[in-house]
């Protein structure tokens, strides 16, 4: 592997073609530990777990297609992908940021407890499943396109924004928010009630909601070169859990 000598302020470029993920990630870890702040990975073809064990605020820019579990268990780095991400992106992520200039696969943000994920285009099934929050740790997932079924399933905290820019706010996902018992989903456009999980309520946005949404859409637009005001003009709805204890009453002792 060819690597420019470590000078922390400089961007370090790595040609990842043909490098096994374990070796690539070990190299990244070493660089991060030696104080590298900016790393560019070129020709990434499916290497898994990028960003998983860096545990510091390093900036990683990926050109190509990172493999599954991008940023799994991640704590700190900021990852930008010029390409599509695959499944399990941001799995159990604790902190940091992932910005995807493309699509992402299934279970993005699974069980994330912190950090932010922005996806320019669409995502697969069960996006944001079981995201949870604790005190100041609140995961954020903003999706520019649309999502497949079971969006926000079991969601226990955090904020999920679905913009539907590619379909002008028409969403096809079903079972949205099934088992949801915390957090909030802001959805641009509308959704039929048969598409929602039965634990989910629908509401108009309040003042605080609009502020938060404007901030997140602003960040999204800045990442991907959109006009935030244009996006925000459209109607949004808020999906919220009807109960913090959806399954509290099915048991007998």
């Amino acid at each position, binding site marked *: 592997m060819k690597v420019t000598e470590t000078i922390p302020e400089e961007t370090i470029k790595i040609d990842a073609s043909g490098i096994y993920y*374990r070796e690539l*990630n070990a190299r990244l*870890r070493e660089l991060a530990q030696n104080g590298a702040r900016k790393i560019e990975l070129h020709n990434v073809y499916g290497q*898994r*777990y990028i960003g*998983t*064990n860096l*545990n510091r605020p390093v900036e990683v820019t990926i050109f190509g297609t990172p493999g*599954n*579990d991008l940023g*799994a*268990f991640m*704590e700190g780095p900021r990852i930008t992908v010029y390409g599509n991400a695959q*499944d*399990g992106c941001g*799995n*159990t992520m*604790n902190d940091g940021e992932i910005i995807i200039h493309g699509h992402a696969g299934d*279970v993005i943000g*699974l*069980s994330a*407890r912190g950090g932010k994920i922005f996806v320019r285009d669409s995502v697969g099934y*069960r996006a944001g*499943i*079981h995201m*949870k*929050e*604790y005190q100041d*740790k609140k995961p954020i997932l903003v999706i520019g396109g649309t999502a497949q079924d079971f969006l926000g*399933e*079991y969601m*226990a*905290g955090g904020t999920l924004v679905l913009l539907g820019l590619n379909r002008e706010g028409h969403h096809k996902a079903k079972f949205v928010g099934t*088992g949801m*018992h*915390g957090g909030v989903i802001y959805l641009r456009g509308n959704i039929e009630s048969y598409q929602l999980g039965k634990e989910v309520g629908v509401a108009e946005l309040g003042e605080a909601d609009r502020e938060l949404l404007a901030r997140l859409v602003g960040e999204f637009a800045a990442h991907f070169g959109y006009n935030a005001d244009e996006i925000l003009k459209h109607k949004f709805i808020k999906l919220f859990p009807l109960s*913090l*204890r*959806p*399954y*509290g*009453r*099915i*048991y*007998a*002792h």
Partner: protein
Amino acid sequence: MKTYLPPKFLVERDQDKCIKCEVCVNQCSFDNHYYDAEDDEMKTRTEGCVGCHRCVTFCPTGALTVRRNPLEYRDNYNWRPEYIEDIIKQAETGGVLLTGMGNDKGQRIYWDHLVLNASQVTNPSIDPLREPMELTTYLGRKPDRVELDTDLNLQTELAPQVKLEVPVMFAAMSYGAVSLNVHESLARAATEAGTLWNTGEGGLHPKLYKYGNNTIVQVASGRFGVHPEYLEVARVVEIKIGQGAKPGIGGHLPGEKVSAEVSATRMIPQGTDALSPAPQHDIYSIEDLAQLVYALKEATHYTKPVSVKIAAVHNSAAIASGMVRAGADIIVLDGLRGATGAAPKVIRDNVGIPIELALASVDTRLRQEGIRNRASIVVSGGIRNSGDVAKAIALGADAVYIGTAALIALGCRLCQQCHTGKCAWGICTTDLFLSKRVNPDIGARRLANLLRGWSLELKDMLGGMGINALESLRGNRLHLRGVGLTETELKILGVKMAGE
């Protein structure tokens, strides 16, 4: 609705011995005892008694006893009282019957049909009191072959290994299901005894990080309290797929048990339900399992064994083979009699297979495939004493987990009320008043004593067989014989009939 349920127990008080000290009133977390000022007498509402013996144990004059309610039903082998009473409960509530602890039904306990060998005449037995006897066990992947250089230095790169002084570890019990004092007792006892304890799926309280070297941390479907530091402090990381008490279903820690401290450790808001989804939604296949195994290896820089725990079910052998191929360094099988803090009764009592059969078939299968060295096998679910441990080792286990036995050491009387959060012994509760009943100094002592006793007994059994290291018993089924078993059972267990 008036309940049609008859009381399960009668609490009897010898009024001559009772000194009205009200210890029983304070001890009974089910509010059964009270002082009747009019009669100037201590009284008991017997219908609420769960038979936990807390009041009996702490009554200073021994005035109390608890008996099974002698109320008889008409004999009916089909409609036994338990089934009648379950129907009454459901007719009154319309809910899923919830229970605690392990399966209490009569499925065959194979440990009781296996006997161990001893040396007589043709080979000498060994006296463990005077001769060295080794129980040391290493958990982790063993290499396919070992290469040495000419100076006999090891050339093969070894996968991370964990050394146990005694092949008995404490099973996963989450903080939230059990109290922090129980966690501390387990952690300290494991440290003292040179073995491991397991956090379960509810995170690890920072106060216990210092016992990290003897700690297995769990990563389950809820991913509660899983963060880089949690993985960092641990000795082993365990992926929980399933649990013997409730194979195939998720967990559900009710909001009442999510106290401030539990909320901090699980990293979820206080008072909300902690739902553990039934599957891990990033694992729908062996390939997906491999992905999580390696995600955790990446996250811990390949310095710790990754364990995968499943409930023992019909296809365990094939699944175990997949788990090993997915990169698990330790595989854990939890049998039909494994316990829980809360599970639907119908699942606890009817789903899964006995651990003895699962263990034998998994060990056999991995040997047949030539991959037995690639993972250690740990079994749990109904290990009651050192005899069961020795038999498990002979059937092929590297080590065992004990959960129920550990809780009994702390005072548990198997009253099966764990799911109520009212455990009078302060074990299975997060109530601050009740959880003080387990003093970690005493708890750690009782647990370490238990392990010490079992170690001595294991050495006795080994010595009797004429072997001086547990390693020589491991997977050596010739040291076992079956009693009262069918041809098929003997075949699956891979043991001969006694007398053969």
